[in-house]
């Protein structure tokens, strides 16, 4: 115990004496929450529309007005020339061409239906898809207007139609920040835990003190436990700190119990810290830890479901994700914060994280050698 406490005291002295370390502990959460959450915005707004109006009728103008009246679209120009509109699209001056052919109104009145063309700039596929959805809504609305006008009834009482009222549970206003912030918190905690623990051990290798420690009667488990605990504490502190920022900055709801969240995070971090330790046993320098760690963490995070739900990933990716610890924390943090899930709801995730933690710990203790 005396040995363990001596190492622990030494680690804390070194961490808090290092000004850069303090900066990392305080600044990383602030920057990640303030910048990343906003930057990871998946909402599509201000879609620039150029209208090619070859009809010049009341109907075509009214349709164009509906687009300019929508909060998602901005009318940037009107032209009669398809080529000109395409040039705008090419120059990134427009995201969408709304092309209304000549005779649109006439066909609409005579035959009861008419067609028009929407051309999207789909460089960013998902943004194009989302704006296509908005455009469809504008057109549906326009359609409903025509029907009610011709039938002379109230708009919302379209005859025989099914009136759907959609509610978005657990994120009523579809605030993307409430979706992203918990994900960013997972990244924050994972990066802090994995990198700081990995770098710390390799730093001792670099300055040559590892060898000095290896000729002492320190037991492996004492050393490893004392090395990991400070970063375990720091990562949990950063989770609390990040959560606080999210609470004040974007009113992140905390529906569930913080006890559930932090208990799970404490378990999750054991595996992550041990993974950092494992990396450090393979690496000789801090740069190597960074490169290996970065490679692993990028895959963990991008596959972990921060942007795309794991359920929408291809089958093979879902199978890989069974072994991705980040994926489970991503689920737990959103479930607990947004949905108010309790211990009973996250049993599978807890089981996985316990197994992951034990395995990682076992591997890294086996791999860490006191003898060269």
């Amino acid at each position, binding site marked *: 115990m*005396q040995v363990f406490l001596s190492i622990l005291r030494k680690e804390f002295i070194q961490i808090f004496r290092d000004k850069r370390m303090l900066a990392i502990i305080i600044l990383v959460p602030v920057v990640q929450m303030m910048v990343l959450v906003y930057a990871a915005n998946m909402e599509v707004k201000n879609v620039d529309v150029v209208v090619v109006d070859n009809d010049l009728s009341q109907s075509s103008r009214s349709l164009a007005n509906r687009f300019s009246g929508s909060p998602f679209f901005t009318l940037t120009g009107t032209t009669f020339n398809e080529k000109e509109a395409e040039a705008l699209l090419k120059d990134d001056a427009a995201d969408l061409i709304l092309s209304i052919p000549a005779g649109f109104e006439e066909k609409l009145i005579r035959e009861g239906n008419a067609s028009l063309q929407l051309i999207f700039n789909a460089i960013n596929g998902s943004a194009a898809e989302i704006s296509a959805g908005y455009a469809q809504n504008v057109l549906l609305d326009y359609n409903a207007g025509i029907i009610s006008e011709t039938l002379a009834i109230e708009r919302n009482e379209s005859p025989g139609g099914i009136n759907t009222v959609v509610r978005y549970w657990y994120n009523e206003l579809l605030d993307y920040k409430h979706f992203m912030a918990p994900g960013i918190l997972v990244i924050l905690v994972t990066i802090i835990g994995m990198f700081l623990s990995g770098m710390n051990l390799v730093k001792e290798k670099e300055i040559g*003190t590892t060898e*000095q420690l290896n*000729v*002492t*009667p*320190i037991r492996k488990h004492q050393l490893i436990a004392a090395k990991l605990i400070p970063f375990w504490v720091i990562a949990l502190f950063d989770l609390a700190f990040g959560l606080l920022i999210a609470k004040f900055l974007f009113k992140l709801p905390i529906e569930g119990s913080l006890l559930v969240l932090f208990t799970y995070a404490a378990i999750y971090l054991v595996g992550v810290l041990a993974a950092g330790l494992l990396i450090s046993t393979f690496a000789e320098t801090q740069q190597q830890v960074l490169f290996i760690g970065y490679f692993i963490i990028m895959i963990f995070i991008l596959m972990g479901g921060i942007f795309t739900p794991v359920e929408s990933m291809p089958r093979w990716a879902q199978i890989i994700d069974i072994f991705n610890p980040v994926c489970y924390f991503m689920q737990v943090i959103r479930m607990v914060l947004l949905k108010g899930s309790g211990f009973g709801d996250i049993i599978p995730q807890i089981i996985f994280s316990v197994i992951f933690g034990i395995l990682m710990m076992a591997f890294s203790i086996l791999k860490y050698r006191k*003898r*060269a």
Partner: protein
Amino acid sequence: MMGNGKVIEVKNLVKKFGNFVANDHLTFDVHRGEIFGFLGANGAGKTTAMRILCGLSKPTSGEITVNGFDVYRQSEAIKRTIGYMSQKFSLYEDMTVAENMRFYAGIYKLPRSKRLKKEAELRDKLHMPEIMNKLVGSLPLGWKQKLAFSIALIHDPGIVFLDEPTGGVDPITRRQFWKLIYEASANGITVFVTTHYMDEAEYCDRVTIMVDGRIEALDTPAQLMQTYGASSMNDVFLTLARKAKKAVG
């Protein structure tokens, strides 16, 4: 186990790295309280042998005991009874002298009273009371080495291993350092020291000269100089090294 008891016994120590033989059948004993020099050019296999004695590396074959403990099975027991100061300076530069001492005292489970006594001793020895609260990184190299030596002795080990302890410092500081070694030896601590400074060899009670992984000579400095008809240890070493080259060529 007093007087000239053997604290290190080595018989036919062999260490191979792949096909490369770093230590080729080394056999020697070290007696209690003596200053035992391990000499040789860089790459002669000194550090390899020392690391095996400290339990940092496993030998390929041979019978080796340190303080009566077997290096294969009892390396952790050996570690409790030895001190070690490596080539690379290895105290924590971002901690103060007192913090470093407290850390190592804790690792060797020294009681508080003993730690305070050791701190007082060091303060007297270095003639600078205020040094205890200075960051190690801010001290000159010579001081750091003296400090590292004192900390290697913090748990009163029976043997202290010094791997090129005086590398990179000026002759005056080297002399001061050897004063500390004599002091330790006078207190009954066995000193096992590697060096490639031949003048330092003359300070040792007995020296071993290693060439290409083998022990070429083992005796007191005076006896060696007489045997090889040399006027200094440097000449002894050059004679042996030249002979070894001829044998290879």
